[in-house]
């Protein structure tokens, strides 16, 4: 009898492994950011890389996001493939000009003559009491602005494959990792933050959604940590005879609209779960896609469970009130199916 060995990694280890393997393959790849060196990244995305590659390729920067993100842009144009880490996505306010006005527009403004092959990694998400300026997700805001690919993985397997794809992509890719999926020892354990990851390098295509659980009664479309919450909710729903399909978008730009339409045509019901703010964001885009492509197949108006349009409150009961969770997702799906 063959012995099956499973290689389990946390998401943070999967990400740092992807970066390490690409750095070994391609000498142009290097990392810049605050505390990416000795510390290994505040959320572990660059853990162990300094020891492997040294300070010339794993570069701790001053707290100077405009400078080092802009530096990544220039280095990318002149032949390198930088990875720059914006510690928390909430910090984009001090450097967004470099990101959306420069990084994202140069290829277009140049009529396709200049490429900016870089990855901007950033941590997202709340649920641990970090309040209004360290808990947002904000991928919808970036996805709204043309010229950046937007990647939001949920599992260790996808995190590695998408990171390798992002590094090899000739476009700027913004890679959002949720703190709650990283498998950090100092956060509430999330069993789904550890998973099977092949040791050899592999890619997961950017722009391809993934059915994380098949079902015929309702489609739950989401990303990142909320994929885990939706899968938990789907288990509860199954005990009631409701089979939910959980569609993990994995990237918002490009958006796999076909996968959304296909799933809704099958289940006839759509719930979008989003930890990002509700208005003008991912949930609206997904629902519009379903209406445009599967209107006649819908048995109920599409629904969304998103973060309310308020800054993230500090106090635990208020923050938990705002966040989508297992129970709220199950209740919203149940409502869609049972009316």
């Amino acid at each position: 009898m063959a012995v099956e060995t499973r290689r389990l990694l946390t998401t943070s280890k999967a990400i740092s492994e992807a970066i390490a393997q690409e750095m070994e393959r391609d000498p142009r790849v290097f990392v810049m950011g605050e505390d990416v060196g000795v510390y290994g990244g505040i959320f572990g995305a660059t853990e162990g890389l300094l020891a492997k590659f040294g300070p010339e390729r794993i570069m701790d920067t001053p707290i100077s996001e405009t400078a080092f993100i802009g530096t990544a842009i220039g280095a990318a144009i002149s032949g390198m493939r930088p990875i720059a880490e914006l510690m928390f996505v909430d910090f984009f306010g001090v450097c967004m000009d470099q990101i959306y006005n420069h990084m994202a527009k140069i290829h277009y403004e140049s009529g396709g003559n200049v490429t900016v092959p870089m990855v901007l990694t950033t941590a997202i998400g709340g649920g641990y009491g970090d309040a209004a300026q360290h808990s947002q997700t904000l991928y919808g805001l970036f996805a709204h602005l043309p010229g950046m690919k937007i990647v939001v993985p949920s599992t260790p397997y996808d995190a590695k494959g998408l990171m390798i794809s992002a590094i090899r992509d000739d476009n700027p890719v913004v890679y959002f990792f949720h703190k709650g999926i990283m498998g950090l020892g100092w956060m509430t354990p999330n069993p789904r933050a550890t998973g099977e990851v092949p040791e050899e390098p592999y890619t997961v295509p950017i722009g391809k959604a993934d059915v994380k659980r098949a079902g015929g009664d309702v489609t739950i479309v989401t990303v990142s940590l909320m994929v885990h919450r939706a899968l938990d909710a789907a288990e509860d729903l199954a005990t009631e005879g409701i089979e939910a399909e959980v569609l993990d978008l994995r990237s918002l730009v490009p958006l796999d609209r076909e996968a959304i339409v296909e799933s809704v045509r099958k289940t006839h019901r759509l719930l979008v779960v989003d930890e990002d703010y509700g208005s003008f964001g991912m949930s609206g885009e997904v629902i519009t896609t379903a209406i445009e492509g599967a209107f006649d197949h819908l048995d109920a108006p599409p629904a969304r469970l998103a973060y309310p349009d308020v800054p993230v409150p500090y106090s635990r009961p208020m923050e938990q009130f705002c966040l989508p969770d297992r129970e709220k997702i199950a209740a919203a799906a149940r409502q869609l199916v049972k009316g």
Partner: protein
Amino acid sequence: MPSNETLRALHHQMVRIRVFEETLQKIYFEGKTPAFDIAAGPVPGEMHLAAGQEPVAAGVCAHLRPTDAVTATHRPHHVALAHGMDMQRLAAEIFGKETGLGHGKGGHMHLFDPATNFGCSGIIAEGMPTAVGHALAFKKLGRDDIAVSFFGEGAANQGAFHESLNLAALWKLGVVFVCEDNAWAISVPKDKATAIANNSDRASAYGMPGVLIPDNDPVAVYEAAGEAVARARRGGGPSLIEIKTDRLLGHFEGDPQLYRTKAEMETVTQRDAIRRFERQLIESGAMTQPDLDQVWEAARAEVAEAVEFARSSPYPAPEAALLHVFA
């Protein structure tokens, strides 16, 4: 003192820039009279011309190779031309034509030219960190190419200025920061915006040499830039050069410049750096009046040819707007 050959090259560069800018100024108003309509005519949108600032571009870029990276501002033509950008493709881009550098997608504030590693931007100080990045790449790639970041005195109060100087000095990168102080940030004069008289003094705060060129003199710019470029090339780190230059025209064409006095306008026109340089060239015997005339004539021909290329080029297909978001 530079050789006569260098002096003639500086003069030639400044003259072709001046003719280009003055020609564009005329073309810009085609279709915009009698009532000024910014969207009308062959060249719509804002137009920021650099007449008066030629010594900066000519003096610095004389030391550069096409593989050196240059980042410039919303007022970029003088630097672009001095760094070797193809004038025809530049003109075509300004006309929004398919044959332009960016196939008409960028326009005059967003010029990108891989052939000369040139980029510019309409956002104040935005290109400064990019220059640091070019220099970092050159260091990593083992090339002795350098990066030059041109910016106005208004940009020196942006965070990107301070962050870029710090990072370039911290990592000892081959960047030359060139401050074009034309004394005006649109309508706000330098002394109403900056607490100190000379931005070159700020260099010491970042541990790099700072040089002040007080009089828009191309030879002085050439000599200071020569030192800074050589330092950057040999791995000696960044420098800051500030040039007190002159904006002979408005912030943009159509700017009535009500904020400038007649006396100031007369002064800057009187001290036109090209005319002053030409007097010196004749006095020193480096050039004769017929030599000078010939340079102007050749520049007019070159610019006329570029404009003709731009005018006769086709517009891009409208639906090409949807291309080139991603590689």
